[in-house]
């Protein structure tokens, strides 16, 4: 007794450790929310606050705080997303270099940071400094020769395996939802699906930590998709602090849309591109209010990342380029060719990746996730090390490919034959013939291209956080650079051909291979994800130049047309279909001429519709009905004869209401009549107390007639976000159409397997 009294004070603080009991109005896991109800609840809440705000100053201040809580949430999301992105960038920078060597003065410096203050760097070998030592120098004191090479090779593979193994173990033990890209699941969540734990705190922590590990291990994957997931987890976390968002699933999804924009913004340093990406790819409903708030969150995130300054030069992304050399109309032809390549590669990647993921899902391959990750990492590390273009991290590769070759570059790719008497300034170097280094680089790049194309198919979709923006951009950049160098050499050696004569005089700087790399990257990314506007905006925010919009658009449009000719789905929609998520895509067009009667349940031969009557069922009857069936809701009709519709009752609310009534109300027994009308029905004298459940009844369920075309029904489901729709004829209830039925019907019409729509 004394203990209980003493603990009661601190008992309130420890209440969160107890198991929470379900609220009326919350949803179960793997169910769809009711958008209309969430919207009306929010309107009620807002009306209550507004009416109370006239009462006193304190209420007025509370109403102001409520109005501003949205902006506060956006600010917090931006701060945390920017901070996490900065942490990820810095940690990846360090750990990637850890595979090759270590800094002796301070172990936390990456290669570039270690040699920052050194005076030993030369023009030819800008990375050399005595403080940074490769593993072979450290362990056996040799830096050249076969044994040093083999030792470095071995250490590279070992570090890569260690990082990958740590990552997959952490994911498996702590947060299995942290694997994959996250964008297909976030799309499904934003369309109204509930996946509890997917945006939780453990998922956030593990995804951040393991993302650094897998990117550092040298696997062919990127961090942009997982950063969107991380930002949405931040959004979920902050929205749970304010009751305006934590209790309303519809409002919470507005915050998540804005958080997704912040995620892309810090991944690419492109705030506007982030907002457009959220609008185009990720969000389902995007009201105008969300547009402004997303932009605010994206800006705050970009600003926070810039303050942390992970790349040491106040740039947000590693491959920011800033040249402004013009392009010429005749170059549109190779740009369109790059677009075609991007579209073809996108189709190839989607088909192969989905086939491999389906195999992983259905065969024994899926039983060994840890082993699969280790094997793929080992293969990637073994093949990647010999080629200098795959040994470095993919972001650095893209940065090198995007960069123009001025007089100051010393990389192999810029090994042109220089005219020794030339005295032109650095940014106006004319076209030069290629030296030996360029030819070596070309075949090394060709090998790198094939390797990246093949290995990304097997890497995306493993049980580790994996994105695919960077690998796609790498494939496109390699192809683009090769085409660009080809065009450049063609223009130099054959400057008297008709096509070159007009715009390319000898001694002028006509062709910029870096621009071809950018266009190729945009084409491949567009071919895989089928992004349009957001892709172009992200690319020109990356480059900082508006003069390249036309080539980027030409390539993006071409790649989308070519890819759409082979299949309508982008990679994210394809993964949604593979997993069977109940996602009703706004981009799909339903053009078949079926009617509502063809889709509604019950069909011929099925048991009749399970309904509740308005005042003639007992509590026991209802409990039996609930136990025997697993429907999410039951229509309520006047009586079994007339079958006129009154409303719709949710299963979860029925269960809670009956349980509450049995526990608390007087005289409710199994034989009590359950009624949904205003007034209790006429009952004989000694019957038990009736149970009134009108408050849980939805009096305005959506109905269509049986001859409504399915096109209209699908449109209604999409635009209003319905979960179910009742079918009537002459005012009498005939059947019910749920969202799953619509999805199965669409799958059937598209000749897919309707049973693959899962989640009951």
């Amino acid at each position, binding site marked *: 007794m004394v203990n209980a009294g003493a603990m009661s004070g601190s008992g*309130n603080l420890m*209440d969160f450790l107890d198991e*929470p009991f379900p609220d009326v109005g919350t949803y179960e896991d793997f169910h769809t929310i009711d958008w209309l109800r969430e919207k009306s609840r929010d309107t009620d809440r807002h009306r209550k606050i507004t009416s109370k705000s006239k009462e006193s100053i304190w209420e007025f201040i509370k109403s102001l705080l409520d109005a501003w809580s949205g902006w506060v949430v956006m600010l917090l999301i931006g701060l945390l997303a920017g901070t996490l992105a900065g942490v990820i960038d810095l*940690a990846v920078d360090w750990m990637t270099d850890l595979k090759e060597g270590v800094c002796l003065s301070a172990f936390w410096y990456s290669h570039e940071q270690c040699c920052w203050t050194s005076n030993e760097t030369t023009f030819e070998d800008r990375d050399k400094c005595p403080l940074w030592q490769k593993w072979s120098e450290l362990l056996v004191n040799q830096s050249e020769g076969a044994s040093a090479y083999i030792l470095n090779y071995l250490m590279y593979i070992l570090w890569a395996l260690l990082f990958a193994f740590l990552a997959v173990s952490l994911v498996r033990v702590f947060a299995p939802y942290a694997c994959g890209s996250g964008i297909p699941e976030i799309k499904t969540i934003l369309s109204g699906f509930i996946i509890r734990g997917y945006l939780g705190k453990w998922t956030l922590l593990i995804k951040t930590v393991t993302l650094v590990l897998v990117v550092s291990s040298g696997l062919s994957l990127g961090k942009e998709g997982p950063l969107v997931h991380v930002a949405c987890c931040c959004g979920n976390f902050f929205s749970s602090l304010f009751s305006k968002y934590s209790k309303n699933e519809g409002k919470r999804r507005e915050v998540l849309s804005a958080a997704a924009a912040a995620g892309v913004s810090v991944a690419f340093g492109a705030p506007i591109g982030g907002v457009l990406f959220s609008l185009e790819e990720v969000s389902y409903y995007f009201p105008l209010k969300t547009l402004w708030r997303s932009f605010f969150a994206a800006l705050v995130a970009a600003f926070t990342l810039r303050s942390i300054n992970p790349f040491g030069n106040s740039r947000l992304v590693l491959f920011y380029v800033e040249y402004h050399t013009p392009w010429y109309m005749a170059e549109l032809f190779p740009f369109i060719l790059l677009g075609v390549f991007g579209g073809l590669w996108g189709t190839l990647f989607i088909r192969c990746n989905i086939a491999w993921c389906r195999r992983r899902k259905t065969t024994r391959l899926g039983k060994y996730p840890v082993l699969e990750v280790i094997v793929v990492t080992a293969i990637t590390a073994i093949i990647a090390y010999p080629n200098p273009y795959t040994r470095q991290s993919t972001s650095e590769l893209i940065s090198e490919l995007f960069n123009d070759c001025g007089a100051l570059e010393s990389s192999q790719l810029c090994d042109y034959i220089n005219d020794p008497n030339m005295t032109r300034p650095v940014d106006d170097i004319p076209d030069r013939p290629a030296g030996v280094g360029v030819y070596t680089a070309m075949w090394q790049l060709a090998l790198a291209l094939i390797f990246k194309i093949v290995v990304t198919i097997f890497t995306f979709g493993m049980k580790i956080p994996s994105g695919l923006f960077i690998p796609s951009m790498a494939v496109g950049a390699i192809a683009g650079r090769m085409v660009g160098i080809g065009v450049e050499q063609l223009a130099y050696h054959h400057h008297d051909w008709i096509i070159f004569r007009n715009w390319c005089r000898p001694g002028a700087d006509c062709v910029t291979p870096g621009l071809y790399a950018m266009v190729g990257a945009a084409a491949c990314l567009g071919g895989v994800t089928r992004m349009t506007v957001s892709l172009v905006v992200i690319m020109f925010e990356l480059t900082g130049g508006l003069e390249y919009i036309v080539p980027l658009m030409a390539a993006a449009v071409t790649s989308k047309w070519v890819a759409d000719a082979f299949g309508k789905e982008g990679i994210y929609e394809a993964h949604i279909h593979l997993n069977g998520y109940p996602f009703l895509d706004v981009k799909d067009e339903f053009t078949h001429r079926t009617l509502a009667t063809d889709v509604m349940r019950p069909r011929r031969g099925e048991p009749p519709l399970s309904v509740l009557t308005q005042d003639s069922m007992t509590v026991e009857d209802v409990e039996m009905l609930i136990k025997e069936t697993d429907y999410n809701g039951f229509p309520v009709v006047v009586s079994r004869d007339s079958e006129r519709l009154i409303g719709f009752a949710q299963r979860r609310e029925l269960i809670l209401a009956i349980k509450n009534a049995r526990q608390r109300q007087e005289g409710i027994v199994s034989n009590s009549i359950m009624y949904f009308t205003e007034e209790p029905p006429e009952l004989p004298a000694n019957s038990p107390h009736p149970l009134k459940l009108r408050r849980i009844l939805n009096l305005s369920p959506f109905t269509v007639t049986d001859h409504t075309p399915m096109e209209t029904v699908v449109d209604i489901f999409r635009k209003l976000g319905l979960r179910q729709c009742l079918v009537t004829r002459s005012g009498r209830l005939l059947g019910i159409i749920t969202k799953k039925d619509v999805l199965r019907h669409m799958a059937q019409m598209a000749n897919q397997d309707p049973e693959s729509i899962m989640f009951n």
Partner: protein
Amino acid sequence: MPASPLRKSLHAQVSGFADPASLISMKLLSLVAVVGCLLVPTAEANKSSEDIRCKCICPPYRNISGHIYNQNVSQKDCNCLHVVEPMPVPGHDVEAYCLLCECRYEERSTTTIKVIIVIYLSVVGALLLYMAFLMLVDPLIRKPDAYTEQLHNEEENEDARSMAAATASLGGPRANTVLERVEGAQQRWKLQVQEQRKTVFDRHKMLS
């Protein structure tokens, strides 16, 4: 016992905070956020001599080889004339030489890098320790509950029901001490993760 409306709203509001491990993770997150917000002023304030430089890259010129010059000067002095010392060309050639050189002002924050890497490594270390604890030490501590271990080998619904019964018995008589409540919360979290693991790894229902 009917719960008061206050407790109900508290439950609803903090129902996501239902395990001690998420307390730890929440603390870590807030620590990272606070550190991040603090790093912004420290990044501005701490400009030690190691943190700024002006880097001039000069390509080969006539018979002079290419060279890189680093100096610790402010941004307005970051140009070829101040940084390239000793000047390799005679006076009348200086302008032509300097036109070829490119000078860039760069700054970094060594404290930021050090703090972030150390925090990251400690988070990874803590997670590894907790993983080792969960996989090695925890099963030994839970020896008295061996009957739940046996039921692990049964089918999944029986398993879930037995675990639910175990946690219900744990929370049944309104566990009073903090330790027992932490135990209960940790059990619930483990159940959640196990459910997630089954969905993703075993049944391949999600994230295939």
